[in-house]
């Protein structure tokens, strides 16, 4: 596809807003951030925000960034110790420990934050997880491969289909089975529908975290329409259990194509409305702009993926970089923005939402009428997978989402582990990002990272 044509797709959707990155698909696009990008590539010994050597990226962004203090040598902030962590003297009376959580506005699942605050500013943060540990990876040890399917999808509750996909794909890869073409199209359809319903929550949810509830109601309504489609296609609304090793569990119902395409119009309408009430809202702008800034240099240092990385100028999307299923047969372009703050990340998800709706329409028109939707597989009760290991990843709405599967040749997996985006976003990254932000913004920052606690602890 030519660059011109690519740009057409995005400019149709987003006008001038999208700035394509020519020949720089994997590096921060903005020339200003070149310096910080080099610093990031230099390795992990560089600075972190709040450290006494100063955060890179502040220089060119400080005018937006009201919550990174201009001068961190002020007494207000504790000095960093040898381990790079602030040394807080609680007996000084300057600081207070606050336990925030485990519920946060707009976050699915539970996790707590142990915040050390000075006034209403955070000087140190630790995340605490363990509210949702269900031990899935242990439970898999005594489950047949087919039995893993209805269990694994609970590892990330709001976007369960990515679990089904990467697990099925891993089992297929290890056992040398290929899903039929139709199954691949149906899997893509479900993965994109799943991304869409997730984005319909999280895009207006960003407003919700600041107290703008109305968009959440609208988003939930459109999401329910998507869930209706899921119910028709898969028999379930949240846990679809639709993909399984070998293929999928059903063809398109009659008339589904037309109904789904019609529903996509609701998505575009919603995108317009949320643009009016949230993105063009002076209060939202004031709260979101400059808040929770991610410097491009952090992307590799913290393992940042998905929209959080793409908002920082990195064109990274597993669907493009490692095309799986039949994504290389679709025409689309990955939205990339710069200056990754809460506003930009919400905006990039808003763009993703429309790109996804567009992809769903493309997929619906390409699903073949004929053909099988499941390859023959051995008896599910005795299915032994040849010894081997693999790592299979897909692009979830939050970024790279992968399963590492090890088989010892028996009917039971030796090890299945999940690499979820929130594992890095909500622990290592969040702990650094929260320093010097206002406690009122914590929820918004967590939503802007699309924190998903269930995928952290599995």
């Amino acid at each position, binding site marked *: 596809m030519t660059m011109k044509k690519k740009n057409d797709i995005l400019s149709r959707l987003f006008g001038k807003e999208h700035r394509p990155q020519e020949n720089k698909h994997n590096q921060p696009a903005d020339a200003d951030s070149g310096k910080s990008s080099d610093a990031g590539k230099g390795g992990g010994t560089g600075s972190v925000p709040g450290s006494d050597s100063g955060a890179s990226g502040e220089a060119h962004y400080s005018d937006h960034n009201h919550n990174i203090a201009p001068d961190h040598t002020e007494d207000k902030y504790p000095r960093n110790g040898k381990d790079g962590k602030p040394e807080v003297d609680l007996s000084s009376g300057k600081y207070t420990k606050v336990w925030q959580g485990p519920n946060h506005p707009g976050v699915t699942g539970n996790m707590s934050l142990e915040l050390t605050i000075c006034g209403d500013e955070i000087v140190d943060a630790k995340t605490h997880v363990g509210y949702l540990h269900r031990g899935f990876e242990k439970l898999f040890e005594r489950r047949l491969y087919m039995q893993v399917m209805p269990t694994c999808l609970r590892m990330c509750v709001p976007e369960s289909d990515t679990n089904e996909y990467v697990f099925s794909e891993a089992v297929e890869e290890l056992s040398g089975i290929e899903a039929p073409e139709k199954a691949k199209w149906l899997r893509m359809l479900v993965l994109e529908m799943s991304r869409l319903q997730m984005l319909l929550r999280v895009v207006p949810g960003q407003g919700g975290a600041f107290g703008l509830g109305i968009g959440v109601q609208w988003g939930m309504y459109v999401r329910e329409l998507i869930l209706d489609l899921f119910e028709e296609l898969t028999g379930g609304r949240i846990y679809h259990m639709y993909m399984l090793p070998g293929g999928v569990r059903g063809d398109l119902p009659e008339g589904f194509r037309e109904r789904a395409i019609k529903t996509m119009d609701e998505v575009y309408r919603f995108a317009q409305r949320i643009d009016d009430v949230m993105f*063009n*809202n002076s209060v939202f*702008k004031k709260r979101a702009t400059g808040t929770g800034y991610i410097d491009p240099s952090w992307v590799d240092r913290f393992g940042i993926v998905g929209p959080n990385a793409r908002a920082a100028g990195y064109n990274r999307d597993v669907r493009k970089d490692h095309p799986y299923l039949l994504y290389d047969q679709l025409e689309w372009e990955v939205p990339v923005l710069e200056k990754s703050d809460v506003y930009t990340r919400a905006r990039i998800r808003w763009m993703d939402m429309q790109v996804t709706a567009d992809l769903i329409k493309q997929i619906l028109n390409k699903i073949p009428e004929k053909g*099988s939707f499941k390859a023959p*597989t*051995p008896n599910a*009760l005795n299915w032994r997978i040849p010894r081997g290991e693999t790592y299979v990843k897909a692009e979830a709405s939050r970024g790279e989402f992968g399963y590492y599967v090890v088989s010892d040749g028996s009917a039971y997996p030796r090890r299945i582990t999940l690499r979820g985006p929130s594992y890095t976003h909500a622990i290592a990254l969040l702990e650094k990002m929260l320093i010097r932000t206002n406690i009122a913004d914590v929820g918004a920052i967590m939503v802007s990272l699309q924190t998903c606690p269930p995928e952290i602890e599995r």
Partner: protein
Amino acid sequence: MSKLKDILSPFTAWNNLARDPVTIKDPINDRPGAARYRGFHQNDIEKCIGCGACESICETGAIRMVEVDEVETKEGDSGLRPEVDYGRCCFCALCVDICSTGSLTLSNEYIWVDEDPEAFTFVPGIDKKPWDNNQDGWKKPEPDYELNIKERVRMPEMQAEERENSFVEIVKGYSREQAIAEADRCIDCGLCQATCPAHMDIPDYIRAVREENLKEGFRIMYKTNPLPEVCGRICTHKCEDVCAMGHRGDPIAIRWLKRYIADSVDENEYQEALQQENPKDKDKSIAIVGAGPTGLSAAYYLALMGYSVKMFEAQPRAGGMMRYGIPEYRLPYNALDQDIDYILSLGVDIQYNTRVGKDITLDALHEKYDSVLVGTGLHAGKSTRIPGTDHEHVYQAVDLLREFSKGNEIPISEKIVIIGGGNVAMDITRTLARLQNQKYGQVNITTTSLETEDVMPADQEEIDEAREEKVNLKPGWGPQKIEIENNKIKGLHVQRCLSVFDENGRFNPQFDESQTDFFEGDMLIEAIGQGMDISYLSKSIRDGLDFTQRGRLVVNDYFQSKQEWLFIGGDIIQGPDVIHGIANGHKAARGIDMYLRGDLRYE
């Protein structure tokens, strides 16, 4: 300007005041689950066989197989039914997808509630629920969607052209990969075990194939069947008729898996694999009349118990019908000998060419031995007794098969007509077809039976293979008269047979006299069944036995006759087939043991 827009733009939300609400007013009634919705279970109780595949696949342990009063345990149906605990069920519907019969489905009901928590555990289909007749809900997806392989692994066989003039075994046996793939299809329900006359541990030895623990599989088979090489080839495999997989696909090839295990153990490894010996620690001795399946099986188990066993066989070799009835292309002699040799190696004594009743009397055996088991089988061919059957070129199938097995020449002509629709008829048909091919270079045999093909007692594969070997099969005709001209057989007159049995299941064939046919042939063979020859029972013994009104011998559960020292089993009592003989022999052996300990009386 843009600042002002940012203040005004959110007010567009007021536009919604003019929109219609999107809420569903009465969701309980207006919003049924979708057609594929995964709601509460439904189970078609008549269709369900209680195989427990649903329980095995359930990853939450929500399904338990429970006893229900409404269903009886019978062959092919455990009588158990799945109970679902909705405190555990995750509504994944894998139970539906794997259901052997397709009886289990999910309804689209999702709003049912109850105050009693125990109400959320019930047996679908037995405990009546309002959604039992809902049409919508999750059904196993169609087509091409299976969580198992419906087709059995094809058995490699000699092609028709290769085999049509050869007595080399047709079936080649599974390779390691084929056997494991076939064993993998088994869902381990164990429904087959009750139907097998010998109650072999079928799921266990199939598991041994899967786990490549073949010696263990061999030991499992010998627990209930000391003739696995034979049964692995020619068993009537009643187990496969009730196999859960057979409801929607091919049953597991249980017989071929048994053969695979038996073939995998070499003759000289038997002792090492089984580690058995005759302790000879009992001072009682037993005579066995007839070295067929019943006699051999009993001899094996009695020898292991420590008894001295002596067998008397009328023919020059052991095996009975297995040797003298079944053609070599189905059961090669070396396979049979492997089984027999092992039994004899346990210190079982055998005297050949000794016909009890002629060479030695049963009374003499009674005097010399503590107990006697007779398993003399059915070796006397029955005749149709239609006009012409007394002609010298009308033969009995069993006689020809026996003579041929002994290596003697048997009469063979260019055009043969055979009467019979069972496996013996197929055996003689296919044996003679091979001989015709060898002698004349072509086959000209007409085999006719009363039964139409769908109810012919012969195995379907026998019928198909006979056709492949160019035999002219004519099912559904009743023989009327043999046409004889100048003392030469010309052929057989037949009438269309409408039905074989009456509504009571009695043999009572009905004919359509207007439909007739004539099958040409210069030699005619009857293969319509065999009778027993029990002339060896002297009058004094016979008078002490019980017979039914229809002349059948009566024995108790342990095959003990009213003459308590005398045990009778095999085809005379039950069958006719090998596996019943083996089962009878095993049980009679236990009966004899009990009798000799003084624990068993005929009642």
